[in-house]
């Protein structure tokens, strides 16, 4: 299959990630959405590395994204825990202290 297909898949996955963040009223969906978006990015990296470049850059980058995604998920979860602790609810709409 051509690189276009892979890009299409990754674009679709990216769109679904965004919709997941927006549509659902639970912070965890936001986390899930973020993971989808990161995966979509990884697909692109690897696909272009495979079809375009000849070095390892694409893959290496993907690896790093994965590493950092892990770290990010951990911190995110800790924050969610605290939010829950503070707001007793994890609906993003309640977390609006920042609102003026």
């Amino acid at each position, binding site marked *: *299959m051509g690189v276009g297909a892979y890009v299409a898949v990754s674009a679709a996955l990216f769109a*679904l990630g965004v919709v997941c963040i927006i549509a659902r009223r639970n912070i965890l*969906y936001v986390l899930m959405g973020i993971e*989808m978006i990161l995966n979509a990015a990884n697909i692109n990296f690897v696909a272009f590395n495979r079809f375009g470049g000849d070095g390892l850059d694409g*893959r290496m980058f993907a690896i790093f994204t994965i590493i950092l995604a892990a770290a990010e998920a951990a911190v995110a979860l800790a924050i*969610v825990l605290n939010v*829950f602790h503070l707001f007793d609810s994890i609906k993003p709409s309640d977390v609006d202290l920042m609102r003026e």
Partner: protein
Amino acid sequence: MAMGIERGFYALLGLAALAGAGWGLSSGGVGGLLFAGFAALTLGGALVCIWERSVVRSAFALLATFGGVAGLFLLLGADFLAMAQILIYVGGILALILFGVMLSPPDPTERKLSRVGLGLAAGGGAFAWVGAKVAATVHWSQAATPPPAPKLSHAREIGVGFLAADQYVVAFELAAVVLTVALVAAVYIARRKVADFEEPAEPEGGI
């Protein structure tokens, strides 16, 4: 009526998967089929994840997405990456999300699907349109046929990549640092506050 929509959604999903598989088979043979399968797995998982009302089911749908992505990596010859994907995403991050699900309260009021559906449709349509436009303008360096099947690269190459002086040793070290900091921070943020235990002393003299 609610079950009708559910059942309709999954039916649609199955149809889409079949169509994809057919298209993949017709265009790329076994490779194409594999690709379509994995793609269907990824996108379907994502769709289910959004659609599902309960968080747990969504989490598990996400598992399918991560698996599909790992498959795609394999198709693209990035074997180490696929393994890393499964190991970290499925093993690590998904577990974390599941923990998050367990620790958070059940979400009593679920938004009506219609709003979600509407959002999905609008977002998807707009996105597809822009994607098509972008795809049209980008001239792919697509060879008629894909380059020869990639030899599966060994983990050694990636290891060398990490440690070779001129390549990614700095990034590797940096990633290490970021990881440690993030984890320590996570632990620190999530620690049990002392205040949770004592009753806060009532200040004398009232307000």
